């Protein structure tokens, strides 16, 4: 919860947010999302939450259907990149809170690997920030993914466009 503005004032708006752990091991559960939402119900200046969830698809490749993605990262650089994205988004959009979580390790098909949660007084800022942040994550954070196929252990390296 250190990435919420309890009171929106010029002084607090100027503070630098401490870097914060983004990576979680394995999939992000729906319950984790619910707990994050519940923790924001005491923040009574929030009018809008925009949540983005990235879910692993069973895409069909030459080698078969994707059964999961195994994520790895250049963790220190990635945490720095997430921090820079967060600061940038706070300066661009009028947000009250912002939380980003990304999986490392195996995330099976149908499970969630990315959870971006932004909150604002009015909805426009939350919508705009949500899309912006996800785009930034896809292009700027050194995260790597192996798309796994079937029991034979075949895989293809994923590449964001």
């Amino acid at each position, binding site marked *: 919860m250190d990435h919420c503005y309890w009171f929106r004032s010029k002084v607090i708006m100027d503070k630098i947010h401490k870097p914060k752990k983004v990576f979680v091991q394995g999939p992000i559960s729906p319950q984790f999302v619910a707990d994050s939402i519940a923790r924001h119900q005491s923040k009574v200046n929030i009018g809008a939450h925009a949540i983005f969830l990235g879910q692993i698809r069973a895409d069909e490749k030459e080698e078969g259907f994707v059964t999961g*993605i195994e994520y790895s990262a250049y963790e220190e650089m990635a945490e720095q990149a997430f921090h820079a994205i967060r600061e940038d988004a706070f300066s661009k959009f009028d947000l009250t809170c912002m939380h980003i979580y990304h999986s490392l390790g195996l995330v099976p098909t149908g499970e969630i*690997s990315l959870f971006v949660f932004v909150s604002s007084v009015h909805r426009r800022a939350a919508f705009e920030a949500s899309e912006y942040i996800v785009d930034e994550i896809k292009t700027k954070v050194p995260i790597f993914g192996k798309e796994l196929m079937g029991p034979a252990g075949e895989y293809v390296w994923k*590449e964001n466009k």
Partner: protein
Amino acid sequence: MEMTINILYFGMLAEITGLASETWLLKDGLTVGDLKQEIGDKYPLIRDKKFKVAVNQQIGDDGTKISFQSEVALLPPFAGG
């Protein structure tokens, strides 16, 4: 002057080198462009791959200088999200 530089490999590049990192002995004042040349000589398979080079956790270009305290990493295409 020579310097030792720790180079990190990620994703498919780590697969090609068979290593997560290794320490190179390189001449001081080397650029990212020079380093890519040397890496391509040692690991010809890497030449066909798209990758970026981060110096001190910032993406560099061919002109970026590498000094003896630099942390260098070879990054294949990103796949987050």
